[in-house]
């Protein structure tokens, strides 16, 4: 017995020591993050991952675009309860309709960008950097700048309203799971955005053809132009926008090509376009395209959002406006052209790659740079009205029946209206209205039969507390440090 016990013990001890290897069972579909970015090829894979995550439903894949229009007065809803109508009705509180998907998704993406930046920095610090690696680092920093820009506009007060107020937590490193970050000021976030953009710019590729679906130097400049506009830095905004305009890399769609551009990927205007391929970020019947289709037009189309009367009136200034070509009748009548086909590839509904729902999202188009330049020129300390009119007219000519602007007639309203017409359903309107401290009117009468909207009044402006989102209850629960920094009113 004793012998056997000894034998067993010895055997057991041998087993214990030799079986560490047996017990090291590794996953087959995951890698170790500490070692997963070692080369430029690895970094490319991570950049792909980051771009893909930017196409998530909670970000550019759908909701962020809808958000920018549903709240800006250009969208109307026909019926409540179809989906995302709480954006429209401002039915937000920390515990329901918080819109936390933005917060969660964008911070998840920022983590990916931070991981790339930190990992590449490590390789560079070890003396193994390369131009390619720096380019990827630049892309990650530019992406991070864009994401903070989006976050701070969702959760923070406008820069030109109160830049000392709370922005969003500013995270540039990889965090431990125990971290409880608190909010930085709006100003601090904007400062970081500009720093990321300027740090990144020198590394980025200027080769348009090689960067389809990714961020390049021109996208970086275009974002910079946008950001400066939101900070009322008109000189800087104009400089950045003009660098893009004057690069000659991009060209405006002609009036004959404009409608067709919605059934092509990476057109001549696309400065930053996120690719959505089938079985990647394709949301199928929940895609952006489906959200804008007429109720019942195809199976699964519920007619979530359509144009408001105000937008239709604005467009009706010129019945020959070529942009009517992407519109189709909505469910309210046989003639009201309220339904946009931008994200299904136009009336053929074959998308930009033979799929009705896997359609790219054009995040920044050249047309926007013209209108940014126009506005910046107009609002310079010494306005350059000639330039403003000239830039505006490049876009305004898409409504051929309208008289072109000139230095005497050009106004900010004309530029903003043009932006509304050109970028319908592209997620810009609301942020412009808030930035410009405009009153937003909602086409609530269009809801048929009428229902009562109780969470906001028919018209709002940026003094209304719900123009920015609440920090969600889940975040407050998990991160008590931020609890005292909830947006006022919630």
């Amino acid at each position, binding site marked *: *017995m004793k012998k*056997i016990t000894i034998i*067993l013990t010895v055997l057991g001890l041998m*087993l*214990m020591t030799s*079986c*560490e290897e*047996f*017990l090291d*069972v590794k*996953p*087959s*579909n*995951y890698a*170790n*993050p500490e070692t*997963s970015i070692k080369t430029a090829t690895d970094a490319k*894979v991570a950049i*792909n*991952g*980051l*771009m*893909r*995550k930017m*196409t998530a439903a909670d970000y550019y894949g759908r909701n962020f675009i809808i958000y920018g229009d549903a709240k800006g007065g250009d969208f109307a809803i026909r019926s409540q*309860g179809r989906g995302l109508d*709480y954006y429209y009705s401002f*039915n937000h*509180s920390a*515990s*329901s309709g918080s819109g936390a998907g933005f917060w*969660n998704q964008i911070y*998840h993406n920022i*983590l*990916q960008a931070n*991981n790339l930046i930190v990992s590449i920095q490590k390789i560079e610090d070890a003396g193994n950097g390369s131009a390619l690696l720096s380019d990827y680092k630049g892309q990650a920093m530019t992406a991070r700048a864009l994401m903070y820009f989006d976050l701070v506009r969702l959760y923070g007060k406008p820069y030109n309203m109160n830049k000392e107020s709370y922005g969003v*937590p500013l*995270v540039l490193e990889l*965090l431990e*799971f125990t971290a409880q970050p608190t909010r930085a000021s709006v100003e601090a976030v904007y400062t970081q955005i500009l720093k990321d953009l300027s740090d990144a710019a020198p590394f980025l590729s200027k080769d348009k053809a090689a960067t389809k*679906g990714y961020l390049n130097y021109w996208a970086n400049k275009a974002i910079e132009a946008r950001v400066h506009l939101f900070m009322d830095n008109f000189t800087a905004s104009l400089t950045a926008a003009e660098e893009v305009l004057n690069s000659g890399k991009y060209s405006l769609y002609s009036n004959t090509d404009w409608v067709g551009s919605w059934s092509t990927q990476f057109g001549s205007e696309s400065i930053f376009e996120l690719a959505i*391929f*089938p079985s990647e970020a394709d949301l*199928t*019947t929940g895609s952006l395209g489906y959200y804008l289709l007429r109720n*019942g037009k*195809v*199976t*699964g189309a*519920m007619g979530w959002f359509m144009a408001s009367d105000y937008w239709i009136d604005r467009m009706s200034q010129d019945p020959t406006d070529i942009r009517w070509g992407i519109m189709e009748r909505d469910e309210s009548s046989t003639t009201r052209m309220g339904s946009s086909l931008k994200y299904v590839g136009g009336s053929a509904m074959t998308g930009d790659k033979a799929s*009705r*729902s896997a359609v790219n999202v054009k995040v920044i188009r050249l047309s926007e740079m013209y209108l940014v330049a126009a506005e910046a020129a107009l609002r310079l300390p010494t306005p350059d009205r000639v330039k403003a009119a000239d830039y505006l007219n490049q876009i305004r000519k898409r409504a051929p029946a309208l008289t072109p602007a000139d230095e005497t007639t050009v106004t900010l309203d004309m530029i903003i209206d043009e932006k509304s017409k050109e970028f319908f359903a592209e997620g810009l309107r609301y942020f412009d209205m808030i930035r410009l401290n405009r009153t937003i009117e909602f086409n609530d009468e269009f809801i048929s*039969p*009428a*229902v*009562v909207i*109780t969470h906001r009044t028919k018209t709002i402006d940026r003094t209304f507390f719900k123009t920015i989102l609440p920090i969600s209850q*889940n975040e407050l629960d*998990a*991160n008590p440090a931020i609890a005292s920094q909830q947006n006022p009113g919630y």
Partner: protein
Amino acid sequence: MKKLIFIFLSVLFVNAGMAQTRVTGTVTASEDGSPIPYTVVLVKGSRGVGTNTDAEGKYSLSNVASDAVLVFSYVGYKTQEIPVSGRSVINVEMVTDALALDEVIVVAYGTSTKGTFTGAASVVKADAIRDVPTLSFENAMGGKIAGLQITTLSGQAGSTSSIRVRGIGSMNASNEPLYVIDGVPVISGNVTQMGIYTSSNVMNTINPNDIESITVLKDAAASALYGSRAANGVIVITTRQGKLGKPVINFKASVGITPSFATDNYEAASTEQQVELYYENFWNAGKLYEGMTDEEASTSALAQLNKRFNKHGYTFSAPDHTVNSLTIGGERAGQYFDWESELFRTAVYQAYDISVSGGTEASNYYTSFSYTNDLGRSVINEYDRITGRMNFGQKIGRFIELNTNINVSTSSQEGFNDTRALGNNYFLQSRNLLWGLYWPTDIATGLPWTARFGSYAYNPLYYNNEWENWSKTQRVFATETVTIKILPGLNLRSIFSFDNTQTFDHLYYSALHFNGSSLIGSVTENSTKINELLSSSTLNYNKTFGGVHNVSALAGWEVGKNNTDYMRSTGTNLATSELHTVATAGKLDANAYFWGNAMVSMLSRAEYNYNNRYYASASFRRDGSSKLGPDSRWGNFWSVAGSWRIDQEGFMDNVPVISSLRLRASYGVNGTLPTSNYGWRSLTSYSSKYMEQPGGGVSNIADPNLSWETSYTSNIALEFGVLEQRLTGSIEYFNRASKNLLQDVPISNVTGFGSTLRNVGEINNRGLEFELFGEIIKSGGFTWTAGLTASHVKSTVTKLYGGKNIIWYEPTGGDDRTKFIYTEGESTLAIYGREWAGVERETGLNLWFLNNDSEPDLSVDGRPATYDYTNATEVILGDAHPKLFGGFNTDLGWKGISLGLNFIYKLGGYTYDAAGKDVNDDGYYWERIMSLDAYENRWTPTNKDAIYPQRVAIDMEDVNQKSSRHMHPADFTRLKSITLGYSLPQTLLSKVKLSGARVYFNGANLWTLAAWKVYDPEVNEYGSRGWEMPIGKTYTFGIEASF
């Protein structure tokens, strides 16, 4: 008392020349009248003359002298000597031995007897579950063992119940007990990748009729030998072995029908009432929020109704502009479509079993084959299973014994979405979305209605034909046990097992289906292969010294490896609606990878008893697991225990009323591993491909120092029997302190993730368990017995590392349906949310208790309250754990007729209504069906003492808050099963050459008494009720025959 599982040596027939008569008869157990197979029947004084009873308890002895005396013996029962006295039929009722504590029970790595085992173990024998129509044994165990909580997850065909032993010992690692089949720890739980549709529990692959006994190991002494997997208890399943004797063929057939649910489940108000609610909803909105006149409000409400339902053939009018004159007209006026009868049917359950078993001195065998088909109540729910088993034992020479058990099963399940999904959960649709005003055919065209209805339901009668889902599970489970008798008292036992479970899932949507339309049809096939290899070897030593010192020891090791291979192929853009395979697809997409874990253990146990009076035992196990990092993967688990047979003491001779008395106590440590294989590793995933190129990203932030959960359990029990064991019972106290509990803790999303797995705190479970069994009447062939089990478990969070509260959500259904908080000193199921203060009597508005110091709007019951829920602070609202739960069983027997009733009960605590926000909305989701409860109890000017607020068609969010509004008392009792059986008399059977025959009726869930009647009170382990398919009332008829 229970009958034995092991056989005795049979005694061969010897023809004695002096015989004069043939004696036959049946041997039954006095406590329940059930037959006792393998009772040894000997002729006294005639060495070697005798027989065994067969499976039906029948025996036959030829050539017995008329003055002979027959001796009937069976372990656990008193041996009886009965003079033949010239009779030819002698039926014997065996009475349990006053000290029948030597019943053999299967425990960790071996067997023990009830009276000597020092741990807490309870046994359920096959007989106790045999009549319940069930796919898997768990469903039949409710209320039979103290400390065991069985919860039903779904009423779908193919679903099984879950078992919790002694409360919740884990936060977010599994609370599943470890299942051990024939000595082999096995996988448990769901094995499909189908998520919402078919959740196929691997336990379904074991035919309950193949089970001989189930032992539940509850305390550390009983379970610590299973070390790191045993903290939540161990369920040890032993399958049948062949018994010595002639081949016995058993046949069993049963058919059950389930025409209705067991209780009301959110019964909808009538169509007219729905229309009334709809009108009232908008009428109120117009009047209260837009300052309309009655006429304007009525016009607005009618416009809504007409807009929604004109297209379905209805018109609406209200001449006096109030609800009083509301009438429904139109082409289809007066007719409403009955969706419920189209979506639900009478469920039919059929099961057929045949088994053949037998044995000789050298070998024994048990083989079985079964077929089970269960057509669920939902028209798309079906389950089908075939199982086969071969258990074979062979002795080779005197020292070696081989046992091979092979179980093969194949099952298929076609399911039903049990989650809160508007598109395809038919139970939800019938109660919340499909109006009687909707019709499956379009009144305008006569064609099927294919558009989404206004409530967002689709026409299921059309779409049912445009999709399909099923999972097929095949399992081969083979175990080889070699026992070598090295020396007297010293055995080596090695078990090798191979367990292969393969699941094939299929999900198809045609191009016409709303889920397949954008892809022009899609089909997905998943293949999951789980391979588990396990080898254990133990050396066992038993010896008695000096007649009174009994010693046994065990030492050994165990190595296990589990690997799952997963493959998915998806095809879209399908060529033809005729063919539903990936092969026809225009676009292909695939995925394949594998995962797994490994474990190495060494184990040992020593037991000692002095003169069968004082018992002591100790065990030790060391486990290493791949689920933890190198620095924390090894854990030591141990236990000590002792017991004292007080009744064996001399001083007890003076207390004749007490026939048995035993005290036992134990203390030990065991553990729980994380559920996830790689929880300690931070990972980069490559699932984010972009533009058809690989894409990756960080997919979690892990804690590399993640460690075992460890439980420290003490247990003390008193077992007693009085009045010659007419009344037996036990009372048991346990205290389980669990440390380093794992939890997917919500973390700040700013980190990039919403949660991470961590060791976060400590839980204490302590409680009392009480079991009582009595033979109330036992005379003249009439027996009446009754048993009661009761358990009280207090489950408390004792410590949170860092002191921070953790808010978490119930995982069921994936929709965060119940919110809980872990906070020191509170229950492990402390429901968290805002405290609803009911409805204001004069206005019908929602009221909320503030629970903070801000300025109140008003006061309710003397407490500060508000109209605006956002001003109210969240607090702990109640406990989802019951105060007391258990069962009550009673059996009556008379001449082959038996009646058994099995009740379960639960007292105290709350259930959380996760569907109430859907069927009892405040008016925002106006085109949804409301429950009768909502209709009857809502506030109206004529019903001011209402429970629920006034309905107004504005988007109020009050109802969507996690709040006490959705909590209801959990108390209920249910007649879980009633069985009426009749064993045909031998005289009749012998004419048709049957050795036994029995017919029975079983009724399941026939009667329920509940404190809250809106939904089925038998809820899941989190105490919540959502849109899972409810269970039904099942009526089963069965026959059993043996040859």
